[in-house]
């Protein structure tokens, strides 16, 4: 009988451990929970479209973006993106052949760039 109790308690220990680990890992895998990061990428990475997306998983909500041709600013704007959300910003430029178009995005702490060279 005591042996059965040992088995039962062992199963309970394992269940508690597994549930705890599953819970911890689910939080660790959550893109937003206690995390502070954001990324930027082109909506279509392989054609001439310059539309880009800012995906925010940080505590910052305000982003400033600029479209640059080499070092010349072509356009700029602000984007308000809550944590866990993303925002696609359309960029409509013509006559880009032979030029390097850079999208520069910054929050109050860091700056990231993506670019295409036509």
């Amino acid at each position: 009988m005591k042996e059965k109790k040992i088995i039962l308690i062992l199963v309970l220990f394992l269940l508690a451990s597994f549930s705890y680990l599953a819970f911890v890992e689910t939080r660790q895998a959550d893109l937003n929970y206690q995390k502070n990061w954001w990324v930027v990428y082109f909506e279509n990475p392989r054609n001439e479209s310059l539309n880009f997306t800012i995906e925010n998983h940080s505590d910052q909500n305000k982003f400033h973006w600029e479209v640059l041709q080499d070092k010349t600013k072509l356009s700029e704007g602000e984007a308000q993106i809550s944590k866990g959300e993303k925002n696609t910003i359309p960029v409509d430029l013509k006559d880009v052949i032979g030029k390097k178009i850079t999208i520069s995005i910054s929050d109050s702490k860091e700056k990231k760039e993506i670019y295409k060279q036509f």
Partner: protein
Amino acid sequence: MLNFFQSQLLFYISIILVLFLPGYFLLLVVFGKGKFSNLEKLVISFGLSIISVDFLMLLMGKLSISITRLSIFAAISIFSAVCFGIYKFRENKFSKDESASKLFDFSKNQSILIILLLFLTIFIKTSYLKDSIFPNSTDLGHHMYWSKLISETGQLPIYEETNIIQVDGSYQISPPQKIADFIIGEHLIFSAINLLSGISFISYFPSAILFLVDIFSILAIFIIALRFFEDNKGVKLIGVLTLFLIGPVYAISSPQIKFASGGVIGNIIGNLFIPLAFYFYLRAFKEKNSFFLAVALLVSAGLGYTHHLSMLIFIFAFLFSFAIFFVFNIRRMQEIATEWKKIIFSPAVISIFILIFIFIFFVYTPTYLNAKAIDTAVGAPSKDTRAGLTFTQFKFSAGEARMAIGIIGIILLLFYRRLKNYSGAIIAGWTLALFAMSLWPNWLFMDIISSRIGNYSSFPLAILSAFVLFKIFSTLQNETSQKNYLSQKFLLSFFALILLFIFTSGFYDNSQSLSAQGAEGNLRSIETFHAAEFLAKNINNSDAVLKDHNYIAADSWIKLFFMKGYGYPLSRGYFRRYDDAVTKREMCTLWMISTPNTTAGEKCFSGTGTDFVMLNPEYDGAQFQKSKKFWQIYSGKEINIYYKAN
């Protein structure tokens, strides 16, 4: 939250279906209900379930039955139902073994101690896993690719990969070539659980399963220790001491929970099957029971289908045990051989031999059973890491206290004339084989990384150490005995010192591992997964991707997002690999990231068709930003993606 509970429930049901039911019913049909204690049934059912599910899935693969949720469920259900049906038919023919219930009938204090040790073991391991449960270890990523492939295709995988080769001065991707590093038994149970529960491979589930296997291997050591010393009055104390020495102390070190989170699947499962195989061999020869031998062979075959190194270690341990038994029973060998003959040439054993033969030659041949793979493991040591460990290195592999006390254990076995018993011969042979393989591999003509072998020694050494501690303890208790050669005070002090040694050594090891880790790597892994997911949505069949292994976290998991082959994406490996003096390596993966703008780099891009590169911008961003040929299409903190547009 509801989703979390639902997925948890499905996960636990799948564990019961895959890891308990088939083994339980197999045990029932072979032995009935009376041969094992409940704890033995639990542990053995777990091991036999892994083997049963492996063989069922191999058979399904051979019969071209698609491996799906329904077919797995049906296969396990039919197998269990057939076993139960046969058991019911033969129910009256099974004999009962009273020794099992007596051997496992623990006193209240012993039960409390066992529960406490199990709690401590699980608690320490859980504490370590909480920061390493997130799927980011390299080995686990590689293994889970194959498990996911089985789940996605419904077929057994063909273990092959593509490489970069040079043909007529230009580089290209080779046709798929066979790889012997992976063994089917390492992947099938993960596919089965994924299919039944729907749980993602990129989650806690693979490490959790390995954690479970680790706990059951500890229990397997516990039950075999009890069986080894069942004729000893203090058997239960030896069992409890074994549990102490293999459970909470050195709970994190390799090959235990570190291997579980690291995804060293073969070792972890091997450490369950080796004691289980010895358990059945011991009972087969001790009780002269051919059914035990049949199951021992089945477990050995299961080991062979799971891990080559564990299988090799088991073969050596078996041979050493046999040699010791032979030497210490040389005068009775003729009589013993007659007993063995009866057990071996029995319908049960012959049937299992035929079954194993059919599986190996007609159903599925383990990938490592080919000349090339065997050649790499046999011969004079080819590298320093294979030339054997020093004693100092060995003590770190085995656990310092366990090794020191375990060596005394072998001497005690000799002193108490236990080596002529099956139990003594097995435990001594198991330990000495590991000593020889780890410390002097050239004696055995072996060419395998010595530290990996050393890790296996902790299990038999724990049993031997428990035996030593028990002997000291029993000498202390028996104050009136005439056999005490040393004073009680001296023995008491010695016993206290040994316990202190074990506590400090074992728990210091745990604390070192716990303090050394942190969860900060998880965010880096999340960024990798995010980038991989982005790329997976944007590539087509003509694209080739290259990623870096040096500075990207969890990069081996990237292939699970693409599922376009084991060698996809291409990978820049550790830098030292490209300087290998023995094996000439391809250089393209190095050049394409380190020097993409050189002629050699460009030639590699063109030959391999690589057009996407994933790398850490802090280390490798500059050379791509200088080039006019690459677009920076994804920018994160730890990972950037470049597209070769021109």
